[in-house]
């Protein structure tokens, strides 16, 4: 093999090694920013207590702020639910370390407080770039007496999005609760009260309520110069009284703008047609004795 060829081969090999290392690494890692909360230290859109993920990123950690709830510790359930652990709260803030391993990407974080007859749980979910099982077991696990959990969490690259419906399950002591009101509030000031069906499931219609989105959803100007995809928080609250005890449960997470926010389908179709027209001469048959 000539030196030049050998050099080419080694260069190509190194290139490939570097590429694949980068590729597989933890391939879920890129989603970390997608699952970050667009939280603000001041919560003025709901009276419900919240567990909001800090905007500032730190590799291997997730920071949370507790709003409207006093707790000494929070409990974290990983995706594989094999173990849960507690993390101490300091100055209404908590820092959760990624324990790695095959725990799955999604984790559940929550705290339960008890004052006389009032039992209140506050919970949320977050993502670490870990391999492992899907969060089915984590979601089906009873984390508090009155529990409201999403039936599914968005896959990688996906979100709860405006214009989509996502199901949430309400359970009391593990049993689905039918016809119970669920208060749905968003950071963009939407407030709705919906009811669970006979199976304890409530379907939440995420609204087009981002400031510029109501227009784009109707097909008007799509807002040049706006951010690519916006996020906002939401919280679900459910309340039930039983055995002289009052249970209140909150779940908060985030949702994003709709699928066609700042997008123009007509423009896409136009460019695709332009591509088709450009390729069309390839379809002409050859003339007799000449070229196509």
């Amino acid at each position, binding site marked *: 093999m000539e030196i030049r060829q050998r050099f080419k081969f080694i260069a190509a090999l190194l290139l490939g090694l570097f*590429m694949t290392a980068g590729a597989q*690494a933890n391939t879920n890692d890129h989603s970390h920013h997608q699952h970050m909360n667009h939280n603000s230290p001041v919560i003025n859109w709901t009276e419900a207590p919240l567990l909001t993920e800090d905007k500032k990123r730190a590799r291997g950690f997730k920071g949370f702020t507790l709003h409207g709830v006093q707790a000494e510790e929070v409990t974290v359930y990983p995706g594989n639910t094999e173990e849960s652990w507690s993390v101490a709260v300091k100055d209404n803030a908590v820092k959760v370390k990624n324990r790695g391993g095959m725990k799955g990407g999604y984790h559940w974080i929550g705290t339960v407080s008890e004052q006389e007859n009032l039992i209140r749980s506050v919970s949320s979910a977050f993502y670490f770039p870990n391999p492992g099982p899907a969060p089915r077991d984590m979601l089906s696990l009873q984390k508090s007496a009155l529990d409201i959990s999403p039936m599914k969490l968005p896959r990688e690259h996906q979100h709860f999005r405006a214009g989509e419906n996502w199901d949430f399950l309400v359970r009391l002591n593990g049993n689905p609760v039918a016809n119970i009101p669920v208060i749905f509030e968003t950071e963009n000031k939407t407030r709705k009260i919906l009811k669970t069906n006979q199976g304890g499931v409530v379907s939440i219609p995420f609204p087009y309520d981002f400031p510029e989105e109501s227009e784009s959803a109707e097909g008007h100007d799509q807002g040049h110069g*706006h951010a690519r995809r916006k996020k906002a928080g939401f919280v679900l609250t459910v309340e039930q009284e039983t055995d002289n005890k009052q249970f209140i449960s909150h779940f908060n997470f985030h949702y994003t703008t709709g699928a066609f926010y*700042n997008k123009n389908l007509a423009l*896409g179709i136009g*460019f*695709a047609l332009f591509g*088709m027209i450009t390729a069309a001469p*390839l379809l002409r048959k050859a003339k007799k004795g000449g070229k196509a």
Partner: protein
Amino acid sequence: MKSFSMTLGRFRLTVQLIMLVTLLYGATVMGHYLSDMVSNALPALSCAYDPVASDYCVLIPTQHQLNHRVGEAIVRMQGFAFSMLLPLLFTFINFFILFVIFNKAFCGWICPLGTIQELIFRLGRFLGRPLHNLKPHQTGKVRPIKWLMLVGLVMALPLMAGFGVAPHEAGDAFCQVCPSRIITSMAAGSTEQLAVSTSSVTDTIFGAIRAFLVGFIVIAALAIRQPFCRICPMLSLHAVFRRFSLTRLVKVQNDHCDKCGICTKACPMDIPEIWKEHGPKAFNEDCTLCGKCAEYCPQDSVISIKTGPFTVFKSSRDYYKKRVKQVKPNGSKPAAKSKTGRASRAKGENT
């Protein structure tokens, strides 16, 4: 009544169709989170933007890793850190296994975009459209493009976005222009990826290129075999590892080859080396291990596909005779014999 025989071509088409349905719609049948499990393992253009896909193309995380992990980390830390490289190395081993065992077979047997292009080409034969083969000098001009796609769009731009010297949108530059993003998500019933983002000039340019490429490929595939595969960075990524691959194309020297060349005519990538060369050089960087050259080689045991010590398929004269009666090397149906003799008219093929 025609008798049905299972050929390598039919077997491959069956595998392709199963994989197409599985990869494009797998999550609807096999669970919402399936793609998070299978994900990133299969080196084929199965797009994460397909809402019901069961696999994510490795090129997405590749770009994100370079952008967020490597690029941003270098900026943050002013250099590499062991803690950054260690997880990369561990997961690299997992990734490397698939590249080593099957390698280019992912292109020819698994990739949904490859299958869709082949189906469009079959439609082109059905509609009697002309076939344009690339001549060797044209093939030589096209080949560097896939390397430029790999180095430029998959590596350099995401890295530069991580450094902060390229727009944020370039963080997944290849995905921004990848036609699979539109085609596979549209196959799953979503037009979202066809829509061009107007949130920034860069986004609009990327979206326009992506939509243009889709339009061009859909029409071009009626007359050119595998038009996008020829410039696909996944092909070049596989090419890097093909010398280590357990699954490979093997050709031994044969005196009849000089006067034949049917293998190149059968090759969907118009690879002249499979005809002109033998040994390792015949297993070219453009090969997708589809096996057509082996199917249409009229000499016994000259071309074969092997996985490790096992021969998956090898050429034979008897097989060749049966195969050309079904489909011609260039993919068109053989002209039916008729009493009037009119049926043998040419199907408008040119080169």
